[in-house]
């Protein structure tokens, strides 16, 4: 595909560009091309997860879910998107105009930017940087700004309450999340996402989820909390503070928040798959033909499974009370992760087979 792009460039643009600029032009177009290649499926996935969510939760609750627009309701997300695009974006009079508009962007941008370092298989990655894991950690910690700024700029009590709740919650769970990632770091000895997957080489039992089981569970639960999904969705809390931080948003501005939430969900699902479940590696031993082959397919299967868990949680669990969220984060998760870091370090030190030999 890259060759195709090159020949396309050679045919159209390159004669106009001076010799010395050729390399940089190629590079720019290649990168933009790759970004498009990652983001287009991602945004499509975001749209269809909303559909999947309504369907799955519907079936869990013995309903059918959306089934009117298009065959079996398949065009529902498109219809939703069109509706939101054509709605007016209302900016409340007392709101801080600039920040009010920036906030949704601040919440979507980090969750898209984080995809730069996600490896889809052993060579398909946009930016193969050394500190990939750190980069992810830094970017996921930024998504809270969208929420706080939105809550503050709306100049509304409900929105502000939602923002404050979210800020406290995200700071609390980020620590547990960070510690869980440190465990992965100890186990793999690298911050590079590709090398982390390579360190899990093998099948189901070779992946890190087994030696790092507590960290894996805590990571995923913290991920749910970090994305403000049920049962940790106190930042929205429809029954308490209307819709929390985005109560005053409408139209596209609202839908950007919506997209950010789902993009973050996919992000967390992808990270859990990569860090603890072997990324693109196959769950079957290599002896088995076809099924034992590693590939992008397996990564997608894993991501889908974790996304399903997100929806399953939402349909099953009642919302946490706020003080219980704080207690869970600070008093349970953080101590467990710290203890397990030491355990993991011991595992690595003694070279526990089959993971660390």
């Amino acid at each position: 595909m890259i060759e195709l792009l090159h020949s396309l460039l050679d045919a159209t643009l390159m004669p106009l560009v001076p010799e010395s600029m050729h390399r940089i032009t190629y590079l720019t177009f290649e990168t933009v091309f790759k970004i498009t290649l990652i983001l287009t499926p991602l945004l499509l996935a975001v749209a269809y997860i909303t559909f999947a969510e309504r369907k799955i939760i519907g079936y869990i609750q013995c309903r059918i879910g959306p089934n009117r627009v298009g065959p079996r309701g398949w065009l529902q997300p498109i219809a939703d998107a069109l509706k939101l695009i054509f709605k007016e974006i209302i900016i409340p009079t007392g709101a801080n105009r600039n920040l009010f508009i920036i906030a949704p962007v601040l919440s979507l941008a980090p969750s898209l930017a984080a995809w730069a370092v996600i490896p889809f298989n052993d060579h398909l990655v946009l930016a193969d940087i050394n500190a990939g894991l750190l980069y992810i950690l830094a970017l996921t910690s930024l998504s809270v700004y969208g929420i706080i700024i939105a809550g503050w700029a709306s100049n509304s009590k409900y929105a502000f309450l939602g923002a404050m709740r979210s800020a406290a919650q995200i700071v609390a769970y980020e620590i547990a999340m960070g510690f869980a990632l440190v465990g992965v770091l100890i186990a793999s000895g690298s911050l590079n996402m590709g090398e982390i997957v390579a360190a899990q080489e093998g099948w189901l039992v070779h992946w890190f989820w087994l030696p790092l089981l507590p960290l894996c569970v805590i990571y995923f639960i913290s991920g749910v909390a970090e994305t403000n999904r049920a049962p940790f969705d106190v930042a929205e809390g429809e029954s308490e503070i209307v819709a929390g931080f985005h109560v005053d948003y409408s139209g596209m501005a609202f839908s950007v928040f919506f997209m950010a939430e789902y993009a973050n969900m996919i992000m967390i699902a992808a990270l859990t798959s990569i860090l603890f479940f072997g990324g693109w590696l196959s769950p079957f031993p290599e002896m088995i033909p076809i099924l034992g082959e590693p590939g992008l397919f397996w990564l997608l299967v894993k991501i889908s499974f974790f996304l399903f868990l997100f929806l399953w949680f939402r349909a099953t669990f009642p919302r946490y009370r706020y003080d219980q969220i704080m207690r869970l984060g600070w008093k349970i998760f953080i101590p467990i992760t710290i203890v397990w870091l030491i355990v993991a370090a011991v595992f690595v030190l003694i070279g526990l087979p089959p993971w660390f030999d």
Partner: protein
Amino acid sequence: MESDRVIVVPRCLLRIINKKMFELIVFYIFAALLLTSAVMVITMRNPVHAALSLILAFFSSAAIWLLLEAEFLAIVLVLVYVGAVMVLFLFVIMMLDINLAKIREGFIRFLPVGFLVALVMVIVMGSIVGSGIIEPLLEERVYYGPGFSNTQHLGQTLYTDYLYPFEIAGAILLVAIIAAISLTMRARRDTKAQDPNRQVAVKRSDRVRLVSMKTEDR
């Protein structure tokens, strides 16, 4: 030649846009951004805007660190300061009802003193930088290229050469935690706090008492 005519950018400019030049341009952009946002931190009327400018300043300095191939420091700066410290900072600022007029009262009055201090600092820094100490260090600067892992080298140095100071820093952080907790935590009698442990451990017999009563006669 045909292609010569369509070049919009002058040739002389193109020749100097090599890798180093590109780096310089990026540096100046972020340096300018850093300075602007730093000035905005102290001049903004709204404290929330000031805090947001500070976040921008952190970002710009992280970018400058990236240019120096110190990706670990850059990302950690974003992670720690932008991702955690400033969130709490904003949290507090947004919650407080800050009287702007009162804060700004002293600004003009202390401006001359501030300028004087700044002037002295600038003179001293200028004289140190200008005294020819920096130049040899610049000559020594090595570009490591993409394979270089700043994180690994930093870790290696910290845990070998600077092990002792590093551990002391850990002790300082521990003391900070102890101090903060012992100064702020007190068992208040008037809060209606629930103890989840007891809530979870509750048994039926704690709440419901089955009383066998004789059926009353009609």
